[in-house]
């Protein structure tokens, strides 16, 4: 970071006073279409979509590993996976799902949606935004190359010391885990800075804090959590790297080190992490439920402040993952109580969503169903969360399948359901057509049934004493039935999850076959200003900056009270929407350098792991990236500056699907 933030200061280009740069050294790329455009784009919408696509890719990886787990556990004493393979599979499953699926989907929505919702043309630092994505992607890919280079990490997703040390895990799997996530973390950090700056500084005129959509608020909280949580993980990982690669002693018990240091560092990061996985989903359903209940969100200030409160409280509860690590009763009591009280702000949210639905006229389409799915299933996960926040009962439950059930209910039943809801909801804004409702219903019910069939029984398994991370179990333990049920469920769930992608594919085909009919700017009678522009969102977002006068601004423009005090529709969304004419709008040009710069990190990473020689080309590439970055002119000089030339750009958004 220091390099990125610091270095360019020293460089003589790109300053407002010597722009436009007369020498055009390192001209910017200017392809508006094709894959090269995707590689060089700095458009927040495309970057958001790429985050989403990458997450889907990793979801399949994580999902396949989940299914491997379930196959292995379907029957007792199964030998489908060896102990070693099993350990790698569940570690990589957890790691992929958390860091490479849920976090990037959150980033996808934040990137795609947040600038639209605050009425901005792009994020504050578009090139850094692209860099964040690429560095995340390369970190994630590097992590997954471990499968082919000596095996994946085998320490569990929280990788406790000293089991993560070179003595106990001599293969390079954990190095991949460590360095891959370190790299991905750089992306999260730069992304957080970028997005927070955008929310704080680039809101449309009139959009005060209390007029921001709930999703924007949740993005803000999430990114603050990231901003502060990532460095703590970074420190843990750096210490581990120093231990593994450079023989230091941070987790060397023989030298008197305390392995709990790792646990504290990891969970100080880890707990804020779980909230930063759920809050974007909370934000999403806070947009969907009011829209399809045809009512404003119930208790907006409470929604906002409970989100902020969760963000704050999330920092004070990490040791609930360590109730049996031997902290001593005082700490355990303190953390137990603190954890229980997180149920309060979360409960406010749940109940406010219910109250929003109460008395509404509900349109139960797929997006809404998934949202309701989140509300109910997250509650189940939250309640089991509270049951192990009670420390004594956690001594029975921790590290059993009861915990596995808890976190899949909050992560899959909560976060992922919310994200799928969001995909159905904003798909038209991104791609210009709706996802099929019929398949959507199948999608939803398949997922609900598969999900509960998979993870519901895990509550029972856990309470019957099945510890987690078990490669196998014995016949005599009485665990056969529910394990088998869970395995069956997981396949239903897998197929149902795939339907999201199938639906996207089929709907797009149908749409194209029908000659790409216009879905209209406002297909759902939406409430926030992203619905006031064409679908798919034009490259330049807003023709003119929107001026916001109230919460749910767009809705208030469509509806007004008549003389009798009755609320009537005064205009449709299509009537009010901006026509999507980008004339006179100047957009930041694409750039090669984010991806070049990002590519240097994994090379350095491999160098640290295998041979320090490799860090030299990696370092050179890094320097080259920074060099190119700093030399790049602020604008693409090849794009003529006359204002009428930008109409072609506006069409770009529509050309992908």
């Amino acid at each position, binding site marked *: 970071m220091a390099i990125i933030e610091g*270095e360019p200061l*020293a*460089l*003589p*280009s790109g300053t407002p006073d010597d722009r436009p740069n*007369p*020498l*055009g*050294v*390192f*001209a910017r790329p200017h392809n508006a279409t094709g894959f090269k455009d995707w590689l060089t784009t700095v458009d927040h919408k495309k970057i958001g979509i790429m985050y989403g696509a990458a997450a889907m890719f990793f979801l399949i990886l994580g999902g396949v590993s989940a299914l491997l787990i379930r196959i292995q556990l379907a029957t007792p004493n199964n030998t489908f996976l060896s102990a070693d393979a099993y350990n790698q599979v569940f570690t990589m499953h957890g790691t992929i799902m958390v860091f490479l699926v849920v976090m990037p989907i959150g980033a996808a929505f934040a990137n795609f949606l947040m600038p639209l919702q605050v009425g901005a043309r792009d994020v504050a630092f578009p090139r850094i935004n692209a860099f964040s994505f690429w560095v995340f992607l390369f970190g994630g890919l590097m992590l997954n190359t471990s499968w082919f280079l000596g095996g994946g990490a085998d320490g569990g997703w929280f990788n406790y010391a000293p089991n993560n040390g070179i003595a106990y895990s001599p293969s390079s799997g954990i190095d991949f885990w460590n360095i891959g996530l370190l790299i991905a973390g750089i992306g999260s950090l730069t992304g957080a800075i970028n997005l927070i700056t955008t929310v704080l500084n680039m809101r449309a005129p009139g959009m005060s804090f209390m007029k921001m959509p709930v999703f924007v608020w949740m993005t803000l909280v999430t990114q603050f959590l990231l901003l502060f949580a990532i460095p703590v993980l970074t420190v843990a990982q750096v210490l581990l790297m120093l231990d593994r690669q450079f023989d230091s002693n941070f987790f060397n018990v023989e030298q008197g080190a305390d392995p709990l240091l790792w646990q504290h560092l990891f969970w100080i990061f880890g707990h804020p992490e779980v909230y930063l996985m759920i809050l974007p989903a909370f934000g999403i359903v806070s947009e969907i439920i009011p829209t399809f209940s045809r009512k404003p969100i119930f208790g907006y200030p409470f929604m906002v402040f409970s989100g902020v409160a969760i963000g704050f409280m999330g920092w004070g509860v990490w040791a609930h993952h360590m109730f049996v690590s031997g902290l001593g009763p005082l700490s355990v009591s303190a953390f137990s109580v603190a954890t229980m009280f997180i149920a309060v702000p979360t409960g406010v949210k749940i109940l406010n969503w219910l109250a929003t639905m109460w008395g509404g006229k509900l349109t139960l389409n797929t997006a809404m169903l998934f949202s309701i799915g989140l509300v109910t299933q997250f509650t189940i996960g939250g309640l089991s969360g509270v049951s192990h926040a009670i420390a004594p009962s956690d001594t029975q439950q921790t590290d059993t399948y009861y915990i596995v059930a808890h976190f899949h209910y909050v992560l899959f039943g909560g976060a992922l359901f919310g994200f799928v809801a969001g995909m159905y909801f904003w798909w038209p804004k991104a791609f210009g057509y709706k996802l099929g409702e019929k398949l959507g219903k199948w999608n939803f019910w398949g997922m609900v049934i598969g999900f509960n069939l998979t993870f519901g029984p895990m509550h029972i398994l856990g309470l019957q004493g099945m510890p987690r991370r078990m490669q196998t179990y014995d016949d005599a333990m009485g665990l056969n039935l529910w394990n088998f049920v869970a395995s069956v469920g997981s396949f239903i769930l897998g197929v149902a999850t795939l339907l999201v992608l199938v639906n996207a594919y089929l709907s797009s085909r149908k749409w194209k076959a029908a000659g790409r009919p216009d879905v209209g700017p406002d297909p759902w009678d939406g409430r926030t200003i992203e619905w006031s522009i064409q679908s798919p969102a034009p490259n330049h977002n807003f023709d003119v900056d929107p001026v916001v006068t109230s919460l749910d601004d767009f809705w208030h423009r469509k509806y007004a009270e008549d003389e009798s005090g009755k609320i009537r529709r005064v205009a449709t969304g299509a009537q009010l929407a901006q026509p999507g004419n980008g004339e006179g709008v100047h957009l930041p040009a694409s750039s090669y350098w984010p991806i070049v710069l990002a590519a240097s990190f994994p090379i350095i990473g491999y160098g640290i792991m295998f*041979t320090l*020689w490799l860090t030299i080309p990696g370092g050179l590439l890094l*320097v*080259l990236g*920074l*060099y*190119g970055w*700093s*030399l790049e002119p602020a604008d693409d*000089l090849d794009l003529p500056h006359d204002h009428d030339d930008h109409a072609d750009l506006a069409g770009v958004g529509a050309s992908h699907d």
Partner: protein
Amino acid sequence: MFTWGPKYLFGVSISALIGAVVYGLVTGGDPIGVVSLGYKGGVGDHLGYVMLIAAFVSAQVLCWIMVATRDGDAEVLAQRVGAGAVPPVQAPADPSYWGVVTAFGVAAVVVGLALSSLFFYLGLAVLMVAALMWLLLAWSDRASGDPEVNRVVRDRVAGPFEVPLLSLLAFAVVAIAFSRVFLAASKTGATVAGGIATVIIFGGAVLASRISLKPALMRSVVVLLGVVVLAAGIVGAAAGERDFHHGEEHGDSHSIDEGEGE
């Protein structure tokens, strides 16, 4: 898109690489060593091999810079500047001193071969830098007919390297010089030396900010200061480190050999 410059340089670099490999093999290098830059296995005759690899690297770097800058094509540049016409190419206005530096580098390498590897590597570094800068200068000199423009061209390309690297160099020289002085002095001596240096620098700055010195005088003072620091550093380095053993008061020494720690 690819003008003759990069193509030419690319050719040069590839020949240098092939040359390096062949040379390495011929002079007894290990095949793996030769292709892995000596990571595993020997590379044969070091000097020649390294020179050829250095040529390869610098040609590559320049090649890609030229690709990116479209070979500094004067027409393109002029178009961008909005100038109507391209001034005719002129002979470079200033004599280039990179030749001297290169000669110095070669000398250092030769001396280094005979005396110490430090000189050898220093010489190599100088050679690399000189080669790069010289080529860059030559290239920018034919960018346009206007030496002023040419200088700007050069600066734009070199600046992002030059400025931070020079900064790093300046910083490293000062910091290392100070550390040598401290290391040579006694424990108390180090503190005193540091204190004096601080007082001089900060006091000087305060003075300078209050009174108005002639720029020339200022410059000489700064240069003088630099020379003093450098000289002190060299003297310190030459004096060597003091004896380290814990707690200077107790006589019995317990210094640990360098190797032992690792």
